[in-house]
């Protein structure tokens, strides 16, 4: 009885279940990783593989952090667009951390872009 119920449950799950999404991964960003820009961007956009909450966003130039307002109470989403302060030419690194909305896993990463003088 138990064996049959378990087999039915397993078969049902294997046949019906859709693909399991991995953690929220950064699929793309604007500016893109290693982008060489001739003008300073006014916004920063991060596009994730699944709905997530953006917990951390640090914009760093020459080891100095530039403040970027981030609403930590915002609802989970796949795309986040943040307004940037006026940026001067130089090399920038963006560090981010997000929490996947469905499985609660934390993912982190970084990317860089250059604003030419």
């Amino acid at each position: 009885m138990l064996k049959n119920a378990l087999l039915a449950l397993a078969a049902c799950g294997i046949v019906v279940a859709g693909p399991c999404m991995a953690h929220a991964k950064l699929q793309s960003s604007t500016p893109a990783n290693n982008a060489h820009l001739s003008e300073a961007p006014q916004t920063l956009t991060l596009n994730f593989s699944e709905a997530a909450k953006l917990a951390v966003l640090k914009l760093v130039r020459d080891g100095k952090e530039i403040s970027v307002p981030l609403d930590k109470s915002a609802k989970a989403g796949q795309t986040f667009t943040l307004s940037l302060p006026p940026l001067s030419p130089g090399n920038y690194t963006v560090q981010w951390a997000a929490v996947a909305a469905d499985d609660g896993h934390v993912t982190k990463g970084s990317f860089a872009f250059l604003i030419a003088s």
Partner: protein
Amino acid sequence: MEINGWDLAAAFAKAVTYSATFGAAGAVFFLVYCSSLLRDQQRARIRRLMGILVGIGGAASILRILLLAGSMSGEIAGMFDGSFAGMILSAGEGRATGVRIVGLALLLSAFSAKRSFRGAAVVGAIAASTSFAWVGHIHGMTPNTAATLLLCLHLWCAAFWLGALLPLLVIAKGGNAAQTAAAAARFGKLALRVVAVLLAAGVSLLLMLIGNAAQFWASDYGRMMAIKLLAVAALLGVAAWNKLLLTPRLLKGDARAAQLFRRSLLAEMGFGALILLTTAAFTTLAGPP
């Protein structure tokens, strides 16, 4: 996969949470299932150990949330940033931790000899051991009802098996050969079925997680899963040796078998710890590809 000290600490805290929760829940299952075979002194010792494991399980659960919050910013201050902890708690970890802590608290009812309290302890053991199913990769599946039920069964069976090892060791160290043999035989009788369900549920979950097999086994998640499966095979080997060769010798009163039985329990604990450590690693550090 970028891994730093925070991630490793969070994975280790999860492994400790698994070990303590399964140990405490399994001790309650054992106290109920093998109660008539235990002497009062052994029952009290198992309860004391269970109480310690409840404390460790609760503390490690909370520490893990603080470590995950710290890992977001990479700074110690992040551990105490309410907004980070709030994000983790609201994404499922809060539900899982809440159920686990309530379940662990109910386990303490096992200190009472009253029958109704014993029932509350069993409910607590089931809630605590299956609390890990309230969050995790299966919640990324649609639908996920069958997977959640299978994971609950898998977790409950794991707690029953792994959590019985410490009580069995208490008996094997302090009891006489006949008592050890009787406990091993009674536990082994039900464990055979429990392990079959554990494996069936585990394999079914694995089949659900594998999309492209080649891609899966080449991923960090797949590689860590392979280490876990090797440890499971080793644990099954020791358990089979224990049940098929040692237990019959114990029942015949073989003194050498009692010594080997104690060693086999320690070996099972070692492989069990490796399984929980790898599970904590691939559920914290990686995701299915």
